[in-house]
Structure formats: C-alpha cells, structure tokens
C-alpha cells in the first residue's frame, strides 16, 4: 500500500510540476520607463542651437526601481514641440550623445513646421537604425553601472521661413524616450 501511496504522490506532484509555469515567471518584471528631455533654443540668427544634460535618475519611475534593475533596452523615441515662435518652416536636428562622449543617434526633421508636432497634434516618432539602437542599449546598460554618465540632447533649428530673421526665434521641444527595464522583484 505504501508503494501505491508513494506512486500517487509522485505522479500527482510530477503532473503538477509539468503543468506549472513555476515561480520563475514572477521573479522578473519587465516594464516601460518613459522619460522626457526638454531642450529650448532661441536666438536672432537663422540657425540656433542649444543642449540639455539629462540623467536617467531624474525619472521618478527609474528611481523607484533602480535598485532592482538588471537590464535596460531602448523601445521608442519621439519629438514633440512644446512652444514655437517665428519658425513656420525649417529643419530640426536632434542629436543625442553621451555627455562628453560618442553620439548615440542623430535625426533631422527636414522642412517641417514645428507646430505640426505641437499639442493637440501627435509627436514625430524618431526611427532609429539598428546600429543606433545598439549604441543606445550599450549606453543604457553602462549607465546602470555608472550613473554619473548622463546624456546630452542637442537641438539645432535652422529657419527656412520666414526669412530674413528679424525677431528672436524660439523653439522649445521635448524628446520623449521609452526604455524597457528588466527588474528583479
């Protein structure tokens, strides 16, 4: 009888183990962390530029989970215009690089009206190449090890209309980014 009992227990336990997804599914939690980098450019020339330094630990969501993060992966980035004056047409060049280091990606919106990406309109989603994504991912994961190495977002606006520039041109844009964080819970 003992053998039968043991056999039942073993069969039942093995069956349950087989159908179970185990606890591993709940050991990690992968979620998206959005963050935004504001850049304002202004001046009296047809070409104006400026930059902002941004560190991921400025994100509240990042701060909440940073202790448990294992890996960061780039998901998507977009440009939107927050405010614009005296630029009805022009080029917007966006360069994101490691502060004091290599360029991670550079995109140019050519011959655009910046207000086209101002609320209530949707943003311009930046299409990154595989190489750019790989560079970003390498940076993001090095940031986990070295949180002092922040990124620099530079925006250069080239006015094409109206010309000549007689007023102070002003463009406040936001680079929105989303990274996926793999977190140990």
């Amino acid at each position, binding site marked *: 009888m003992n053998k039968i009992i043991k056999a*039942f227990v073993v069969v039942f336990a093995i069956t349950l183990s087989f159908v*179970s997804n185990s606890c591993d599914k709940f050991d990690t939690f992968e979620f998206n962390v959005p963050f935004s980098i504001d850049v304002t450019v202004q001046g009296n020339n047809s070409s104006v530029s400026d930059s902002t330094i941004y560190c991921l630990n400025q994100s509240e969501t990042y701060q909440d989970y940073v202790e448990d993060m294992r890996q960061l992966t780039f998901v998507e980035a977009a440009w939107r215009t927050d405010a614009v004056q005296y630029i009805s047409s022009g080029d917007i060049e966006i360069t994101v690089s490691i502060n004091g280091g290599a360029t991670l990606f550079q995109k140019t919106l050519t011959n655009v009206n910046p207000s086209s990406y101002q609320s209530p*309109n949707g943003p311009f989603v930046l299409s990154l190449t595989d190489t750019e994504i790989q560079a970003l991912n390498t940076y993001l994961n090095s940031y986990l090890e070295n949180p002092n190495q922040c990124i620099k977002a530079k925006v250069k606006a080239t006015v094409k209309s109206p010309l000549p520039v007689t007023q102070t041109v002003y463009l406040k844009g936001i680079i*929105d980014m989303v990274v996926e964080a793999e977190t140990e819970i």
Partner: protein
Amino acid sequence: MKKLLTFFVLYILCSTNAFSQVEDRFAALTQKNVELYALPFATAFGTAMNSGGYHSADIADWFGFSISFQGMYMLIPDDDLTFTPSLPDGYTAGPTATIFGDKGSAYAGPAGYITTPPGVNVSAMPMALPQVSLSFMGTEVMFRYLPEIELGDKGEKLSLFGIGAKHSISRYIPLIPIDVAVQVLYSKLEITNLVESKNLAFNAHASKTFGILTPYFGLQFESSSLDLTYEINGDPLSGDPALQVDKKVSVSLDGDNSFRATLGAALKLAIFVLNADVNLGSLTTFTGGLSFEF
C-alpha cells in the same frame, strides 16, 4: 502526508506570486484600463476556484470522510492575452498585454508617452487547492481552507476559505442506474488590502461506478467576482492626466465564467482516488485530484 501538504502550500504560494506583483503592474494603469487588464485573471481565477468540487455523485449513506488535493489547469485563449486600452484624445490605441499577455506597450502622443505594463506571458494558469469533505446520510459538506500566510514584505496576508454542500438526488429515485447529486460551492480568497475573490457555483452531476472506475459528468452555473484595491504611482510627466498623481483605486470585476460542462473519470484503489476531468466553459480547464477517502 505532511510533505505533500507542504508541497501544496508552497505550490499555492507560487501560484499566487502573481498577486505580489499586481501592485507594481496596476500602478501604471488607470481604473478603466485595470479592468481590461485584469478581467482575464478574474475569469481564470474564478474558474479555478469553482473547479474540482466533485469526482463522483455517490455519497455515503452513513458516514464518509475525504481529504483531497485538487490541481486545476486553465487554458488562456488568445483573445485574453491582449486588450486595447482607453487613452486620452490625441493618442492612437493599439493592443497591449493583459495580465496573461507578453510585452507592455508605449503610446506616443501630444503629452508624451503613455506606457502599459507587461503581462506574465503565460498561455495557461495552474492552481492547486486542498479540501476536506464529510458526508452523512446522503449529504456532503466540503471545506477548503488555508490559514493566513504572509506574502512578501508589505504585510499582505493570503487567506482562503471555501465551503460546499452536496446532496444525493438518486437516493430518492428507486432503481435509478446512476448516481445523481446536486452541489453548491462558495469560496473566498483574500489578500489583505489588495485582492478579494468571491466565487459561487451550483451544479448537478451524475456518475456510474464500474468496479474501480467511475466516469462522471456535470453541468454547472457559476459566478466570480474579483475586487482589487491598488494605488496609482503618480508620475507628473505621464501623458495621461489620470496617472499624474498618486491615487488609491478600487475596482470590481465580474469574471466571464458562467456555465460549464464537466466530463471526467475517477479511479478508486482502496482508500485512494485519482481523478481527472475536462471542463468546457468560457475557458477550457483540466482538473486532476488525489483523494484519500473512506
């Protein structure tokens, strides 16, 4: 037997690890989207709690006792792996993961990105429950119980209580060749300050014993509710105004499970019974059990 009980307690804890993560997942969802995200779980969990109530319609004429462990395995249909969230004006919603789905999504819009959490990426959900039954004069009372178990470091406690009553109908019908019984089941699982699941089922079932083999069949009406309480972890930069400030949210969900048909068989070897059945309802569910009964 003690080791087996330990195994099942651990197993239940493992299955409910999903609960310990729900706050993290729900914290990034509005009330409306939590309802859509968690609804498949309400259905699957309710289906599990309403499963495994019987493996025979034969009830002892005098006295009977049974202690059993029931394992349930719910198949999650593809439709329950994604949902389309409700987003503010200016955003275009596409599918994202429910609690059973895979990756969360990021939606670009005029106020920045709105993100949704991932699911646990499973196509089935297992569960196991212990239960004890006492029968007397054609009536059986069943209990499901777990003492309070502390989960994680936030002080949440898991508790489970269930009760069922079953009565033989065939004992009133002379010469009927099969056993017939009706049963009502109620169960409640709670994780303090987070989740409360209440489940009710009514079934009629029949069985016929051939030596050590007892095939059985049943029809069951059931309902399940899942109450969730969570706190939105407000982010002032979120693209969704509803997610910009901390806020406590309570949500009540009714599972889609309402009816099922069950077909199975039990194998009785002395005082041990091994049973397995398939349940066809809103979800396809497999149940297996090991009972010690006399």
